[in-house]
């Protein structure tokens, strides 16, 4: 599923790549950029954390003009006279104009590196509203954002992931250099799928996915061994021999009626709860009062 999300087959999606200091998710972000460029789409990158050259590293030369990097790295807070891009411009209306500026009306992909930077300078509720507004604007096909989840409280991460259509968490795997990506995807109809995969990103920013990591939990073999027969190793006999089984079958049980009576009694009746009394031979059915205490 990781490859599907990176390729980005559905529209209107919001993908969050969660990473921690132990395992960086920027390579996945770059592979998203590369995949979008391969599909000949416009890509706008809001770069706050790394410089433009680092982001362009490894990307194919021929798609360069489709990639527009808004440089928020050199002067993010606008301290100099003419800042290139500040974090406050994220909220502004001009960003919409930037994004829908291309001549062909093909919707663009917006990459945010990283959302943690924006959350440091704007309240999370406002950021959520702004992201939803950008998605609804129509100029964007998809938004992919990098989020460092160890920089924020769990509640903020949770609120943002609640908005997302796909969340990829990158954690270090226990198998050497491979990292594990846990992908959760939610479709519009409410179906949720979850998968864990080992992945690696090559030099040309293509992602290869390997086998699923082994599930934790109790190993299944333990249960098979304990399926011992409880009737073994006892000092008394719990089993029946063949003759004893036959005798048991032959025993006539009380209240076993003939088939007609059975099926007659089994018919669904209105107001079930009739009492059918068949007196036995030894029953003494005396309609008179046995205790003689009724004043008749």
């Amino acid at each position, binding site marked *: 599923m990781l490859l599907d999300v990176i390729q980005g087959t559905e529209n209107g999606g919001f993908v969050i790549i969660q990473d921690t200091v132990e395992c960086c998710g920027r390579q996945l972000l770059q592979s998203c950029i590369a995949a979008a460029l391969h599909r000949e789409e416009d890509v706008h990158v809001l770069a706050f954390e790394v410089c433009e050259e680092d982001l362009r590293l490894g990307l194919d030369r021929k798609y360069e003009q489709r990639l527009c990097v808004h440089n928020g790295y050199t002067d993010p807070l606008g301290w100099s006279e003419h800042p290139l891009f500040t974090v406050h411009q994220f909220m502004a209306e001009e960003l919409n104009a930037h994004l829908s500026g291309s001549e062909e009306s093909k919707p663009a992909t917006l990459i945010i590196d990283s959302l943690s930077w924006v959350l440091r300078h704007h*309240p*999370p*509720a*406002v950021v*959520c*509203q702004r992201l*939803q*507004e950008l998605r*609804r604007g129509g100029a964007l096909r998809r938004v992919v954002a990098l989020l460092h989840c160890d920089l924020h*409280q769990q*509640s*903020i991460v*949770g*609120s943002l992931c*609640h*908005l997302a259509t796909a969340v990829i968490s990158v954690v270090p795997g226990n198998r050497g250099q491979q990292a594990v990506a846990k992908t*959760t995807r*939610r479709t519009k109809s*409410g*179906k*949720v799928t*979850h998968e864990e995969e080992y992945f690696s990103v090559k030099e040309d920013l293509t992602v290869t996915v390997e086998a699923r990591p082994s599930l934790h939990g*109790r190993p299944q073999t333990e*249960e098979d061994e*304990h*399926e011992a027969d409880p009737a073994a190793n006892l000092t008394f006999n719990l089993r029946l021999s063949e003759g004893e089984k036959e005798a048991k079958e032959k025993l006539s*049980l009380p*209240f*076993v009626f003939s088939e007609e009576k*059975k099926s007659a*009694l*089994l018919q*669904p009746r*209105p107001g079930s709860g009739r009492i059918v009394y068949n007196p036995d031979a030894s029953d003494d059915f005396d309609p008179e009062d046995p205790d003689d205490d009724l004043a008749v």
Partner: protein
Amino acid sequence: MNMATSVSNTGERRSQQNTRPACNTTSFQKKSRSKLVSIPGTRPSVQNGQLIVSTGVTSLDYVIGGGLAVGTLLLVEEDKYDSYSRMLLKYFLAEGVVCGHHVFLGSARDPPEEIMQDLPAPILDDIASDAVNMGQVTACDSEDQGSMKIAWRYQNLPKVQTALASSSRFGHYYDASKTMARELREAVKCSTFFLPHELPAQTHAEPSPISEAYRLLLHSIQELIQREGFDGTAPQQKSRNILRIGLHSLGSPLWADDICCEEKPTQASSLTSFLYGLRALLRSSLCTCMVTVPSHLIQNRAIMDRVTRLCDTAIALESFRGSERETNPLYKDYHGLLHVKQTPHLNCLVCEAPDTKDLAFKLKRKQFSIERLHLPPDLSDTVSRLSKADVAESARLLSSACGGLATSNKHLDF
């Protein structure tokens, strides 16, 4: 053919009940001499005579005591990915459309038109009863294979009575795989409130107990009630109608509320003030309201407790998707657990609570069924007991008084 027609025609109801196949019906009809107006889609409750409407899901009606009383507020705590709570909201609105009520939908995330276009299609009446009874009859047939030798009188009864149902039908069934026809939807009046369209771009943050977004929503609802005369002010209304209000995902950051993002939110009382005002509006008019809240995001338990207290009926959905319970064999037939957190006592001393608190739900194509969760007995030695850590973890997840019994059953050692 509308099943829940006016109350005064008790004879008509009796004949309608007789045409159904006989399957636990009682012939008991409560004589109601009440002076209630007959509004389509409502009936007086058999417990306390309150006027109730159906929530759209018949098993949910049974769980909350017959139905949703007019003038009350139903709170649904969303499951983690908001799949089933959204479905419940759609059933609620679809029921309003089918009964001919006026429908109001408020949302901040998805445009209300999208939600309205996605309502499930109602199943026509005779097919519905057949579909439901077919399920029960086939259950009986499969038991015939193992005809019993000693207890043969019981061999035609269904094995386990899991489905919760009351004896008289109230409400409709919906097919979740089809959407409602446009003509049906456009036959009822529908008002919507979409926050991004209503909220002005520059909000002047005046200090007030209620935030701008909630204030606008409350104002919009109040205006609608007064304009259409749901509170009885417009005397020229001959036929009264019910207003069904559905509010999606209140308290989420998209409503400009930060109770989901912060432990100590700046406007902690905004949602609670809104609910207080909303309940006052509901009590004085012929309206019902269903609100969904993403309670799993709200960090401060005190806020969630206050929100629950301010609503009349409160249920919580817990979906198994994505949690470790998904692979648990006990829960394989169900999609999640349903916790009833609160039921109201309106004009009476006792509240109606379901007789079992272990409820699990399953979204089937034709029915959203809520059933008693049956745990098979632990007979074998080899089953692994839950360790203390697991119990503590699950107790943390199901931190209400009503839930948590499913795991505690396993913990008992006999």
